[in-house]
């Protein structure tokens, strides 16, 4: 009887199964962190983007005013604030988002670039917007 039970137990036993891979868990955490970073970037980059949009409107409606003169005027009046908004914030978020993308890319193992782009498109958008702010200020 005992032997039969043991045989049944052996028959019922299968290979140990891991439902979730450690790697998958790590990837999920990294993607969530990258999305949090992109959301933070969005809020901080919206400030210089708003200022640029306001200057664009000013140049459109006020004769003689251009985007570059308005930005220079702003940087003369608010020197430290303009450096913070137009240089420090974009550079910081370019670095943060690039690091997040690189981390996801390394965890994916460079297998599917399309999948990485699909997961990090908002981070890429934030890098593009940061570059746009930097170029607008420096030109």
């Amino acid at each position, binding site marked *: 009887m005992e032997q039969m039970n043991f045989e049944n137990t052996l028959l019922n036993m299968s290979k140990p199964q891991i439902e979730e891979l450690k790697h998958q868990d790590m990837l999920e*955490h990294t993607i969530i962190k990258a999305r949090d970073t992109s959301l*933070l970037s*969005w*809020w*901080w980059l*919206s400030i210089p983007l*708003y200022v640029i949009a306001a200057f664009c409107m000013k140049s459109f409606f006020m004769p003689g005013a251009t985007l570059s003169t308005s930005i220079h005027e702003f940087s003369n009046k608010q020197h430290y604030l303009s450096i913070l908004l137009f240089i420090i914030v974009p550079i910081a978020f370019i670095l943060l988002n690039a690091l997040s993308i690189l981390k996801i890319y390394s965890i994916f193992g460079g297998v599917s670039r399309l999948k990485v782009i699909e997961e990090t498109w908002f981070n890429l958008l934030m890098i593009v917007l940061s570059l746009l702010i930097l170029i607008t200020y420096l030109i």
Partner: protein
Amino acid sequence: MPLPWFKRSGLFFVPTTLIGWLLLMAALAYAVYTFIQINNENHSVSDTLMNFVFSLLIIGAVYSLIAFISIRASKTK
């Protein structure tokens, strides 16, 4: 204090604990105070709105920074 105080939902950090809700309420109260102050200083609606949006974005950015740090702190624990 149980962390995280917030969770990400779309483009916003939504409070999940009492501290999170208190922070959101404080941010909203400060936004209202700023609006009243700007409205008293400016004499046209467009001036009030343009200056208020700038302040609102700064308040939102600081709120999101606090939420982001609280989420990061909870993950490193």
